[in-house]
């Protein structure tokens, strides 16, 4: 009984490690697919948004001209 339990645990570990390995292998047909994938993993640092907000508070963008509101 104990052996069975241990065996099933080992089996589970092996299958889990196999699954992990398969998840970390990626194949890309062309470089731009790889770049797209890389871009999707990229996170814009929050500090960019915060800095932008501060910059806009100091120097707000010009208001839309009144005549452009007609178009």
């Amino acid at each position, binding site marked *: 009984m104990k052996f069975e339990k241990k065996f099933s645990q080992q089996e589970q570990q092996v299958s889990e490690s196999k699954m992990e390995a398969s*998840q*970390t*292998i*990626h*194949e*890309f*047909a*062309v*470089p*731009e*697919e*790889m*770049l*797209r*994938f*890389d*871009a*999707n*993993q*990229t*996170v*814009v*640092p*929050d*500090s*960019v*948004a*915060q*800095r*932008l*907000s501060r*910059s*806009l*508070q100091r120097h*707000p*963008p*010009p208001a*839309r*001209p009144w005549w*452009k509101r007609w178009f």
Partner: protein
Amino acid sequence: MKLLVDNSSREQAPQASPLPDLASDELAALYQAHSREIYYLTLRLLGDAQRAEDATHDVFLKAFRKYHDFRGDSSCRAWLYRIAINHCSNLRQSWHNRHVFTSQDDVVEQNASPVTDSPLRVLEIKELGNRIQKTLDSLSEEYRLLLLLVADEELSYEEIAVLTDQTADAVRGKLHRARKAFTTTFRRGE
């Protein structure tokens, strides 16, 4: 040809954080929709996270200031890319970081095996960024920019042609050579 891409990561791709206290919802939406692509372009063109952060800030600030002058001749994404490309180009010139590539790409192409025969394999995602950066750094500026722009599915060949000042046919031709150069260099690192 098999393509094993973990699509779950695409679905869970992190979104840019919204701009706090931004004067206009329109500008906040602009940032939300395009900041990751602009940041990624500057990151890979400049090869440095801090520089990319500064550049992304400057690009959006410039865009926000000029937003009302944007005539809509191109897509918003293409307009932002134009600002980012010019900005990075100016930065690189001022830093004297320009490298002169002579026949290096030709050598790479001569040694290149057909790109379609075997896909590019990547084992570890965490190493992927470094390897991509090294590979891109070894290419000419033109090839690097072409590959980065083509990677954005929102851009058409015509828009890329306008952004890179050439015809769409020229883009297609150069893209083929850029892929070969990238693939050969990338495989050397395996």
